[in-house]
């Protein structure tokens, strides 16, 4: 059955597949308007998983602090919308631009400082960075401190808000997808994989390893920053620890989704995000009160029994069926 599907998938050109999915995504909120917000969150999850995979999958650097760029995006956008005095859409656009810019700068600075650190020390450093950022945001009264920030209300007609943010989030997710698709096809992508395979060797072949890592991080940071700005508006409220810098939820989910779908592949994180999000929502609906236990067990099960992820599994299956063709 699976093999059959795999064969069929391979028969379709990638562009056909992408167009089909794109069309589906474009009509989905009209077919099921009550699910628009849910689906917008799905795209957010896709952005999370994809951007995490840039470092975690393609470069072999496991970051637990990527959520920091999301948080910076949330706050940057919110502050612009609060203080700029511009009309709603202008303020939102400016806010998103600033969100992306600040996330980029942060990634360059943190990258230069931290990306020389390898292995689990890097994971720990990013974890510490994420927690520190949340705590600092919670103490800083200019951005609402521990009370958080409420976002301005969307001015459009009833029901249009969901569609608007659905399409903005969809645009970010697709933008992210195609950017990464392009990136992985360049020699930069090769250099990233080289560092993952053997960083010492990559360095001994003259690659600017730290610069490559930093730029890769910055690219994912831009999309996380944008997503943060939009997500803040979708949620309507930013809490420093539970929304913006939420390492224990968003921060961990992005890792899990990428692993579930298959690290280091283009489609893996996308598939992982879709499956994870649906599973999580089903838990919340049908396992009231026990959903966190179920989620915890799911996490354990994923990493113990499925560490290579769906794409990894598919690849292994393909390789066992046929010798690789050029």
């Amino acid at each position, binding site marked *: 059955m699976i093999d059959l599907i795999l064969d069929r998938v391979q028969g379709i050109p990638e562009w056909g597949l992408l167009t089909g999915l794109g069309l589906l995504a474009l009509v989905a909120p009209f077919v099921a308007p009550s699910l628009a917000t849910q689906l917008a969150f799905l795209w957010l999850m896709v952005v999370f998983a994809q951007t995490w995979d840039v470092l975690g999958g393609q470069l072999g650097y496991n970051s637990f602090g990527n959520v920091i760029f999301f948080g910076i995006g949330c706050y940057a956008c919110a502050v612009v919308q609060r203080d700029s005095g511009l009309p709603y859409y202008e303020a939102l656009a400016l806010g998103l631009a600033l969100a992306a810019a600040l996330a980029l700068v942060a990634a360059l600075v943190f990258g230069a400082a931290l990306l020389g650190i390898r292995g689990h020390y890097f994971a720990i450093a990013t974890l510490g960075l994420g927690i520190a950022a949340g705590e600092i945001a919670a103490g800083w009264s200019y951005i609402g401190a521990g009370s958080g920030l409420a976002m301005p209300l969307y001015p459009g007609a009833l029901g249009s808000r969901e569609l608007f943010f659905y399409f903005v989030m969809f645009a970010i997710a697709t933008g992210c997808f195609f950017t990464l698709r392009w990136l992985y096809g360049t*020699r930069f992508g090769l250099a990233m*994989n080289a560092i993952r395979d053997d960083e010492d060797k990559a360095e001994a072949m*003259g690659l600017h390893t730290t610069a490559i890592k930093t730029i890769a991080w910055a690219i994912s940071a831009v999309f996380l920053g944008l997503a943060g700005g939009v997500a803040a508006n979708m949620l309507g409220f930013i809490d420093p620890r539970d929304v913006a810098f939420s390492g224990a939820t968003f921060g961990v989910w992005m890792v899990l989704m990428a692993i579930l779908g298959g690290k280091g592949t283009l489609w893996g994180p996308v598939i992982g995000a879709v499956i994870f999000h649906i599973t999580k929502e089903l838990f919340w609906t049908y396992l009231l009160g026990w959903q966190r236990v179920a989620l915890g067990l799911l996490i354990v099960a994923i990493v113990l029994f499925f560490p290579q992820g769906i794409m990894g599994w598919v690849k292994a299956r393909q390789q066992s069926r046929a010798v690789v063709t050029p």
Partner: protein
Amino acid sequence: MTLLLDVQNVTKRFGGVTANDGVSLQVRTGQIAGLIGPNGSGKSTLFSAIMGAFPIDGGEVMFNGAPISKLRVGPIVRSGLVRTYQQTRIYSEMTCMENMQVSSRASQGNVLSLLRLKARGVDVRAEDLLAFVGLYEKRFEHAGRLSFGQQKLLEFAMALMCEPKLLLLDEPTAGINPTLINGLIDRLQRANKELGVTLLVIEHNMRVIMNLAEHITCLAHGCVLASGAPEEVRNDPRVLDAYLGAH
């Protein structure tokens, strides 16, 4: 011929063990130089010391007239000094072509230039060099699936992709099918002549090194035992004693 690599009195200690004790060694531009010595005599350590894998405890390494013993691996490599490893290191998850593409000289330049899909001439050169080492047919295969000897050849080709001034080769013939060794010697010589790469080769196989090198240095217990033309070194009684006698 100008002096390309000048190792002056390099000393390296690991805890109480002195792996290199005041080692001096010169390689001139265009030369093929050899480095021999029994197991544990400090040859690979010297390579690592030259390449900047760790700080050295004394002495100085000059490359192309500039001191490099305070630099880290990256800048040293980019100045034109490349090594291969005794235990081959290639990117095993990538295909041979990808291994080659990512190793090109162009990859060492401005990082943003990597964002261009293809750099001019890289693919052609990669294919030429793969053909040169006899791996052209395997170019789309995963490097991790090659045999040890083939990986060795791939690593050599990758090093040539970097267009180094000086290439340090750590036992290029180890693990290679004896029937292919003559071909390899020929390739090393062609790389030297046609591509203008100066070579410093660690080699255990005496026949190989005597045919290949114009100048040989012999290490034992971390010290330079003898140095000179192949014939001189071969006939030096101390070398015979320490090296050949140890066999």
